[in-house]
């Protein structure tokens, strides 16, 4: 019996050492999002990209990250993880996520397990005067004073933000403006808005697609 005990113990330790060496060899590394396909399901990866969409539901946060490889990846941050997260995540922030690649309802996502799997670098706001046609179709983030607040059509809101002489129209559709988490915004408030830059009747316009993408920085 003693022989078997020693043999069993020896084999376990040697096996563990070999598995450990193997595991070190295949540590997760930063992977371009476009390269991640079904082969990656069940493996851990590190992805790093810009938050191009952000949605909240039942305390969970659902991000879409885009990186230089032009791939996009869904990253759900469940409420248990989100509550441990010291920092908030905003549109256009640079976020690095370590997590397992899983398939959810036919689409791939990278799921962080704990707050330590997420690191956030806040992106600075763009000066409104520097917003021009070259940014059309891109996500941007700006900050400015609300000069004008108009309601057009059935409850859509157009805010005109100004900063250092530059002006930009921010379009908030009625579905976003009507949602319960859309903040009160009045003329004179300083707000931060993020969204996609588009052209409407020959004018540049920032389209806000989520209520959480409008933040009141200073209320008068």
């Amino acid at each position: 019996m003693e022989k078997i005990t020693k043999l069993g113990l020896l084999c376990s330790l040697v096996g563990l050492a070999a598995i450990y060496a193997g595991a070190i060899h295949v540590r997760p590394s930063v992977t371009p999002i476009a390269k991640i396909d079904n082969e990656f399901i069940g493996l851990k990866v590190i992805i790093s990209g810009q938050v191009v969409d952000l949605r909240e539901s039942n305390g969970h946060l659902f991000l879409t990250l885009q990186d230089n490889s032009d791939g996009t990846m869904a990253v759900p941050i469940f409420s248990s993880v989100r509550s441990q997260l010291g920092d908030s995540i905003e549109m256009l922030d640079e976020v690095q996520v370590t997590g397992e690649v899983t398939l959810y309802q036919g689409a791939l996502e990278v799921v962080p397990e704990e707050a330590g799997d997420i690191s956030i670098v806040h992106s600075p706001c763009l000066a409104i005067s520097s917003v021009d046609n070259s940014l059309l179709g891109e996500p941007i983030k700006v900050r400015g004073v609300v000069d004008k607040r108009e309601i057009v059509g059935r409850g859509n809101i157009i805010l005109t933000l100004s900063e250092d002489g530059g002006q930009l129209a921010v379009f908030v559709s009625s579905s976003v403006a009507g949602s319960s988490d859309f903040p009160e915004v009045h003329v004179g408030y300083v707000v931060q808005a993020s969204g996609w830059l588009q052209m409407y009747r020959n004018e540049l316009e920032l389209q806000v697609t989520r209520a959480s993408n409008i933040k009141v920085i200073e209320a008068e």
Partner: protein
Amino acid sequence: MFDVLAFTALGVALGIFTGFLPGIHVNNLTPMLLALAVGSAFAPMTLAAAIVAMTITNTFISYIPATFLGAPEPGTELSVLPAHRLLMQGKGYEAIKLTAIGCFGGLLLSAALIWPMLLFIGPAYSAIRPQMHFLLAAVVIVMVALEKSKAGIFWAVAIFLLSGFLGLLSLDTNLIRGDVALMPLLSGLFGVSTLLLSLGNTGSMPEQRIDDGPLEMRRDLKPLFAGTAAGALTGIIPGIGPSQGTVLAQLATRSGGTREFIVSVSGVNTAKALFSFVALYAIGRARSGAAVAVEQLMEVGFRELVFLVGVALFVGGIAVILHMKLGRFAARNIGRLPYRATCIAVIASIVGLTIYYSGLIGLLILATATAIGILPAVVNVKRTHAMGVIMLPCILYFAGLKGSVLAALGL
């Protein structure tokens, strides 16, 4: 309706298959059923019925190899020794009858208890969730302390840590996909190791007596209740397997004896299987491979839960009869089987399947798990300490320490 019946029958057939072969687990076959769901005209409900039918049938039938070959699947490992003891007294069929009482009784009782349980599972879970790591750690400490002797406690801790480290390395690194790693891990720790040890038994198989008396559930109510309660607990809390559940139930009820033991451990198993589907509805968490598969197929609301439980009860009725018939057949014929050759064939099939599903890495994991799985028997402590393979990663996860531990290990 017809397709539900057809898929349920398919599930029962697959459950017999996975139950009989110790190396094949329900989890190996669910991907196949899920693949059927993609792009097929079958309603998710029918496929879910197949998965439930397979899980329940597998739970019953897996006691046949556990009893006659001493080859357990995860969850039946604790019943191996007492059932094997009965086998060696020529009472193999009685052991099968006891597992039938336990499995079927546990299924009926847990179905009856779902309604009252639903009222407090949700709130209880949210209350326990933040303290889960303490609860799991307490279970480990109780299990270890039960070894009593100093040497026993030393070995219990060693086996828990070895298997836990193995679990962490296999389930939480990129070496191999976590779900693929489970099979070599569990069949090594609980299957191959036991089979290897029973190869050393040279004793001949005694003549098996077959007692055709009816199943008497009434005298086993106490172990059945204990088993069902433990099963409900383990179906909802992650990381605790049926074996820990049984030991806790025994502690709570102070029941002992071979008969009660086999009944309650098999009751835990079916109750756990059923409650892992209840957990999907009550707390939205999947607590078994089969529940994960059902979750991927459909959203489980109250209506779906009633359907799943209905299928489980329907299948339970069929499975208990199949289990007794097949068990009887096994008892009649076990003497004719070359015992050693059968064990070797089962080991070979586990090794073959491991290589097929998970390659050489899987084989390395299987070998290491087997080496750890041999230790409890030779140093005379409970095999269930090897559940550290799932418990340790779970405790670290709930404590929010998994990332830092992996980082400290350079992973």
